[in-house]
């Protein structure tokens, strides 16, 4: 098996390389909403708590345009509370992405939950 050892991979003209049938995420965040605190992250400079059920993550390296996507997981709100909820993206810029959590058990109200897993895909600036 051949192995290439290097620190940086780019095209001969200095641009992004094509990874055959692969697409890497440009940011991800494991965030505890009710503390709040960051458990783990990649390309996240900070997280802004914007009140119940709302927060914004600020990228270290910005995206090229506001056409990227964010996807998230659904976690239990807290121990012993079997409450389902939904999540969605809020206002975003090239350097931030907003998320909100909402109770999907019929109330439709904003909800602060413990665990939040979020990933971002798209083009870097």
């Amino acid at each position, binding site marked *: 098996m*051949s192995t290439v050892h290097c620190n940086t991979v780019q095209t001969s003209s200095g641009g992004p390389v094509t990874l055959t049938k692969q697409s890497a995420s440009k940011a991800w965040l494991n965030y505890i909403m009710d503390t709040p605190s960051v458990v783990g992250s990649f390309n996240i400079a900070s997280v802004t708590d914007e009140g119940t059920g709302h927060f914004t993550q600020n990228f270290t390296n910005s995206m090229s345009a506001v056409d990227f996507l964010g996807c998230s997981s659904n976690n239990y709100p807290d121990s012993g509370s*079997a409450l389902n909820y939904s999540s969605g993206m809020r206002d975003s810029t090239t350097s931030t992405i907003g998320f909100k959590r909402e109770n999907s058990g019929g109330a439709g109200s904003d909800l602060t939950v413990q665990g939040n897993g979020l990933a971002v895909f798209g083009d870097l600036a």
Partner: protein
Amino acid sequence: MSEIKTDKLTGTSTAGSILVTGEGNSTTTNLQQGLAKAWVNFDFDGTQAITKSFNTASITDDGTGASSIALTAAMSNANYIITCNGVHDGSLYVAGLCVRHDTPPTSSVLKLDGMNYNQSNYDMEMAMGTVHGDLA
């Protein structure tokens, strides 16, 4: 166009760290940090079974609306993220795949719960999840 054909990429300074230039031709991003480390598409109802996956070893039925997915190559800790979703059965309206709270994921096992709109565990028709984070 130049093209490198190889079976493996390894960092020179740090074996598990290679930078790639971003789409804007200036910013770099870490290749290893951005890649999904595992993904799984599995049947939840009936006999739980993995339909298609990457870096998963097995699935365990933990009871109604509960499943554990074992990873082949473990993560470095439990700080990784799982983005997950599911498809509900035709007889119900809403179902979601949740990361289990009371017995959370470990570095080698994903703990996932299917939940319906009544806020109870539910065997969904199909479920899927992706893992991002650091491998051990």
